[in-house]
């Protein structure tokens, strides 16, 4: 894992003291809320529906045990005993007091964490593959490249006031586990025929009110030029992105309006210019970072077999664990989606337990997934049963990864001041209604957003749900056919919306159509793509 050097620590410590002083001045009345608001947002502090909300950055979703433990302690000490893991691989606390904000940031800084780049029109926290460094299918570990982006983008003076927020994701596998093509810039680290490492750039994707899939504008940028290329992409956007209309200010609109070819031409022109400016970080820095992401000391020859005699354990292994690059090891996902639970929520106690389990069983490492779960990336197979028993005993052993109960849901109108409808109760009802059929239904990615901003990724759900406000009453639109994997697609709205109970019925009917029509090993998405919308509409509205 990356360890702060003296520069990193000094920057974060200085920011803590700066913000502590800004809070003091606000509380004493030296600055107004209008003056203070942009300052608190630069430190991840929002004013939400019930209180201040603090969003803490978890770069590329990677955490140490000590960091995870601190997140649990903050939940208990400053909040109401829980935190909410988000679709940006971050964590949010919903009940923060302004007067505590400086102390919280200081506690975070003590474990090399902060809340910078979690709000505002800057380059946000970079996301990545939750199995990075463990996946058997990756070209390289993508996290050193994400870390280099973090260092390049943090407090970048040219990109601190972009036309709009800017989200980047980095992966290194053909299987996309980070919704890479639905980011402002998605980068896939690739290896060419000559064996050289490079970066494929996908630019102009996003969800929100105008969902778009990012086109590939350059399939291979040499890795020792990828920051320069990123700078070129940002610079063209910063120059021509629309600042006159918030709803047209994201880079996807610029790429769409200019056209991929013209945008690419301008980026390449800027790139050629920037190459002459020699702005790329020295390769030595990348090598320094890469050294911190070296493999942990895996045990050579660790047994590769599992005792599957306990059927509940076997089910959890089949659903929640994936193959590891190292024989004898496995990557295990801890579901934060118990049946009828609140997606992504974990108590302070559970957070500390997961930290302890990571220390004991996963070389001190955890990952937050964009699907709001936690991964222990390097578990020895010989330890897996003991690990599972602890998880199961503490409500963390739900075997539902990528099944119908593994629902992504934004906080919705229960917490968020932007939301138009509640997301969580809908997720809970669907989970309760359909989890009994989860194994029969198989892979089904269900995603719920409480407003058009799409924090719940509804456009990319095999089944998506969008909550809207219809004359002061919650109403839910149903979408089918989305995907945020390598086969990225955007869901299509089925028709008129439903009330809270109606949307649960509609989802159940959609699964019934799938089960009645599936062929062979088809997933829900495969069947939908083969038979189209009509049979689903007929069942839902007929």
């Amino acid at each position, binding site marked *: 894992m990356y360890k702060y050097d003296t520069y990193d620590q000094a920057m974060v410590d200085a920011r803590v003291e700066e913000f502590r002083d800004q809070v003091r001045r*606000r*509380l004493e*009345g030296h600055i107004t*809320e209008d003056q203070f608001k942009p300052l608190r947002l630069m430190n991840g502090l929002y*004013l939400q*529906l*019930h*209180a*201040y909300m603090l969003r803490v950055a978890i770069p590329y979703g990677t955490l140490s045990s000590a960091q995870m433990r601190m997140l649990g302690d903050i939940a208990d000490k400053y909040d*109401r005993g829980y935190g909410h893991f988000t679709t940006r691989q971050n964590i949010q606390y*919903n*009940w*923060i*007091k*302004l*007067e505590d904000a400086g102390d919280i940031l200081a506690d975070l800084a003590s474990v090399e964490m902060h809340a910078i780049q979690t709000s505002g029109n800057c380059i946000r926290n970079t996301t990545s593959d939750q199995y990075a460094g463990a996946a058997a299918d990756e070209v390289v570990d993508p996290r050193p490249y994400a870390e280099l982006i973090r260092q390049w983008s943090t407090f970048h003076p040219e990109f601190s006031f972009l036309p709009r927020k800017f989200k980047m994701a980095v992966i290194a596998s053909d299987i996309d586990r980070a919704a890479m093509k639905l980011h402002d810039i998605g980068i896939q680290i690739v290896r060419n025929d000559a064996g050289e490492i490079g970066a494929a750039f996908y630019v102009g994707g996003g969800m929100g009110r105008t969902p778009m899939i990012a086109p590939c504008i350059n399939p291979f940028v040499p890795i020792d030029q990828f920051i320069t290329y990123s700078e070129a992409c940002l610079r063209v956007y910063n120059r021509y992105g629309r600042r006159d209309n918030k709803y047209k200010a994201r880079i996807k609109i610029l790429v769409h309006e200019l056209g991929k070819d013209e945008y690419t031409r301008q980026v390449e022109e800027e790139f050629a210019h920037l190459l002459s400016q020699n702005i790329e970080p020295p390769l030595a820095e990348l090598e320094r970072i890469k050294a911190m992401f070296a493999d942990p000391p895996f045990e050579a020859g660790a047994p590769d077999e599992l005792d599957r005699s306990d059927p509940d354990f076997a089910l959890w292994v089949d659903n929640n664990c994936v193959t590891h690059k190292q024989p004898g090891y496995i990557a295990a996902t801890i579901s934060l989606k118990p049946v009828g639970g*609140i997606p992504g929520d974990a108590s302070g106690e559970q957070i500390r337990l997961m930290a302890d389990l990571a220390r004991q069983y996963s070389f001190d490492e955890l990952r937050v997934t964009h699907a709001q779960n936690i991964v222990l990336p390097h578990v020895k197979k010989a330890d897996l049963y003991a690990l599972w028993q602890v998880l199961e005993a503490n409500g963390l052993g739900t075997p539902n990864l990528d099944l119908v109960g593994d629902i992504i849901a934004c906080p919705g*109108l*229960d*917490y968020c*001041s932007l*939301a138009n409808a*509640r997301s*969580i*109760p809908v997720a*809970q009802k669907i989970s309760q209604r359909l989890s009994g059929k989860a194994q029969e239904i198989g892979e089904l990615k269900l995603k719920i957003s409480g407003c058009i901003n799409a924090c719940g990724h509804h456009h990319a759900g095999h089944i998506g749900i969008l909550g809207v406000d219809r004359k*002061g*009453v*919650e109403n839910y639109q149903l979408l089918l056919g989305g995907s945020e994997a390598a086969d990225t697609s955007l869901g299509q709205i089925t028709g008129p919306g439903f009330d809270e109970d109606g949307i649960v019925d509609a989802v159940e009917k959609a699964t019934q159509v799938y089960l009645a029509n599936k062929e062979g090993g088809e997933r829900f998405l495969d069947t939908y793509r083969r038979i189209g919308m009509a049979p689903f509409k007929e069942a839902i509205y007929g």
Partner: protein
Amino acid sequence: MKILTGNDLKTGAVTWWDGVQWSLHVEDAVDVGEHADTILAREMAARRVNAAYAIEAVKDEQGVRPAHIKDRIRAFGPTVRPDLTLKPADPTAGDWVI
């Protein structure tokens, strides 16, 4: 009726104008009639409330009820965590929101 709501500057807690000060309980809210702007300007300048605004509400036998569900959830708390609302002991309290 028109009532005023905002957040406590220090704690962020949702508050309601009761005619004299800011209360945690929506049932204390009073009709401010045409005086909303005056009260809001005065109270925010004095930092007794933050990000305050006026909303429509009705008063019936159950008390003061904000017209929009968003403000009813602000008044009650998250419907999915009754233990964190102002009425954690009342299992039906959330019905008021919907």
